C-alpha cells in the first residue's frame, strides 16, 4: 500500500478508507462482517433487520446477467432479538458497523432501533427503497417525501447515532425525498438502493427465473444512474452522501466521489472482483490519487461540479 491517506470522517465516524460493505451482501453474521473488514472495508453494513424473522423469497433469489445482478432475496433475516444476539461485541469486527433497519410501518423501525440499541453500532441506516418486497420500501409507499419524513423523525427521536436514509434511484424527485430526510434529522443519505425491479426470463422454460419473478437491478447497469442521483443530491442537500451502485474499481469509486459522495458502498462488486474488492478498490484509488496529485478523499468530493 502507498502512503496516501484514504481516511474519511463520515458524520463523526472515522473510517480508514471510504469503502463500505453495502447492506444485504454478506452482512448476515458477525463473523462475515469481520472477514469483510479484514479484506479492507472501511466500514460494514449488516443485512437489513425487521421486528420479526422472515424467510424471504424462495430461490432463485440472486442471479446475474451481462451488466450486473438481479436479486429478490425478500429481506430474509432472523428478526431483531436474534440479531441483537448475533451482533454483540461489535468492536471485534475492527471497523465501524452500520445497522440496517427495516419495517412495514414507522413503529417497526423504532422497535428494531430500540432492540439493537445495546449493541455497538456506529450508525443506523434505514432503507425506504426496496423495490421487490411487499410490505416494505417502495411497495409500502415508503418512497414518498411524507413517509420519509415521518419514518426518519420517528427514528430520530429514539437514537443519537447518525441516521443514514437509503433512497431508491427509481424516483424522479429523489432530491425532494432527500430533503425530507434531511429536514427530519437524517445525518446522511445513502444513494442508491437497487433499481427496477427488472426481470430475466428463461426462454427454454418460458418462465421468469427469480421465484419472485421481478428483482432489484444492481452492478454495472446501475452505476450511471447512481452517479447521476448522487450528482443531483450533492447540489440539493447539505448532509453527506454515501454513493452506492455499480462500484467495483477504484475509478468507479473516484467517479462517485467526484459526483459528490463522501464515502462509497460496494455490493455486487463482491461478486465481480471477490471478497477482497475493498482492498483492491482502495489500492486503485491510492494509485490514481498519487498519479493525479490528490492527497485526500475530501479534496475529490464533488469535484465534478461546476
Amino acid at each position, binding site marked *: 500500500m502507498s502512503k496516501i491517506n484514504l481516511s474519511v470522517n463520515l458524520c463523526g465516524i472515522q473510517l480508514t478508507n471510504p469503502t463500505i460493505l453495502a447492506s444485504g451482501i454478506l452482512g448476515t453474521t458477525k463473523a462475515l462482517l469481520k472477514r469483510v473488514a479484514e479484506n479492507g472495508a472501511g466500514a460494514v453494513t449488516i443485512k437489513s433487520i425487521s421486528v420479526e424473522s422472515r424467510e424471504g423469497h424462495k430461490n432463485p*433469489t440472486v442471479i446475474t446477467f451481462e451488466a450486473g445482478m438481479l436479486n429478490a432475496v425478500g429481506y430474509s433475516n432472523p428478526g431483531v432479538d436474534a440479531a441483537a444476539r448475533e451482533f454483540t461485541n461489535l468492536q471485534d469486527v475492527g471497523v465501524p458497523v452500520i445497522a440496517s433497519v427495516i419495517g412495514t410501518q414507522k413503529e417497526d423501525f423504532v422497535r428494531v432501533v430500540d432492540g439493537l440499541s445495546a449493541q455497538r453500532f456506529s450508525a443506523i441506516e434505514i432503507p425506504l427503497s426496496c423495490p421487490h418486497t411487499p410490505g416494505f420500501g417502495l411497495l409500502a409507499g415508503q418512497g414518498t417525501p411524507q413517509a420519509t419524513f415521518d419514518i426518519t423523525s420517528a427514528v430520530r427521536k429514539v437514537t443519537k447515532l447518525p441516521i443514514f436514509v437509503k433512497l431508491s434511484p427509481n424516483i424522479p424527485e429523489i432530491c425532494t425525498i432527500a430533503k425530507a430526510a434531511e429536514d427530519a434529522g437524517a445525518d446522511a443519505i445513502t444513494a442508491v438502493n437497487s433499481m427496477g425491479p427488472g426481470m430475466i426470463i428463461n426462454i*427454454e422454460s418460458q418462465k421468469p427465473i427469480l*421465484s419472485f419473478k421481478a428483482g432489484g437491478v444492481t452492478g454495472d447497469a446501475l452505476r450511471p444512474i447512481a452517479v447521476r442521483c448522487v450528482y443531483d443530491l450533492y447540489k440539493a442537500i447539505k448532509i453527506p452522501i454515501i454513493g452506492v451502485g455499480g462500484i467495483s474499481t477504484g475509478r468507479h469509486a473516484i467517479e462517485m466521489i467526484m459526483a459528490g459522495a463522501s464515502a462509497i458502498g460496494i455490493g455486487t462488486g463482491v461478486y465481480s472482483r471477490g471478497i477482497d474488492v475493498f482492498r483492491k478498490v482502495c489500492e486503485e484509488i491510492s494509485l490514481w490519487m498519487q498519479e493525479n496529485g490528490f492527497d485526500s478523499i475530501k479534496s475529490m468530493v464533488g469535484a465534478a461540479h461546476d
Partner: protein
Amino acid sequence: MIEQPMMAKICDIQEESPGVKTFFFKLNLNFEPGQFVMVWIPLLDEKPFTISYIQKDLVGISVLKRGVFTNAIHSKKIGDMLGIRGPYGRGFSLKPDSNSCVVGGGIGMASLATLVDRLNLVVDKRRGHVTVIQGARTAAEIIYQKRFRDMKLCTEDGTAGFRGTTVDLLKDLLKKQRFQKVYTCGPEKMLYKVVELCGEHGIECEVSLERYIKCGFGVCGQCDCSGQRVCIDGPIFNIQELSRMEDFGKITITKTGARVIH
C-alpha cells in the same frame, strides 16, 4: 460468467435405492469432485445437489427424497427439463499416490462418488489404494452397490456389512492399516467425529459441509459457517480450516438467518 440456470433434458433415470434416484443429463459441465450445482424447477424453488456421475457427455445427480423439492424432482420423467447452474464451490484436493479412505454417510455418498471415480483413475496401484466406507441406517438404503472396487458397508441395524457407524468402522480399519488421507461427507455429527479421529491419528482430512444455500456464488451470506462461505470458500474444507470454524459440528443457520443447534 452469467449465473443463470440452463434447462437440461433428463435423458435417463436410475433407481439407486427406494429413496434415491439418479437423473442423467447431456451437459458439458466443467465439474470437479466436491463441487455442486443449483437445480431449478421453475415456479417452485432451486436447491443444491452434487454431480454424482460424469460419463463422457453425461452427468448425473443422485437425489434423496426428503421434502417438497426432492419429491418434485422424483416425479420427473425422462424428457422433462430441469434448470442447472454452476458448478460452484471449491472441490476436493486429491492426494493420489497414497492410501486414502472415502467415508460416506447416507446421501453424503453422492458427493463422494465422482471423487472415488477420479481417485481410482489417478492412483497408481503400486503406490496407493482407495478404500470406500459407506454407512446407512439399513441395507435398503445402501446406494452404488456395485459401483466401487473396495467398498466396505456398515449399517446401524446390521442388515448389511459391519453393524455400527462409519466412525466405528474407520476406527476398526485404522487398527490394521494406515491412511494418508480421509475424504468424507454425511451428517455433520458424523463428520465431526471423523475429523476428531483423523486429528488423533494425524491423518489429513477433507470434509464436505452443508449449509442452506441461496445464491451459491458468495454474495448473500446465507451459507456462513464461522466466517467461511460454504458455497464458495467450501463446500470442501480441510482439517486445519475446520479447526478454526467454531460452528462446525455445532451450529447451522436457517433460511431466516437464525442460528440453530445442529
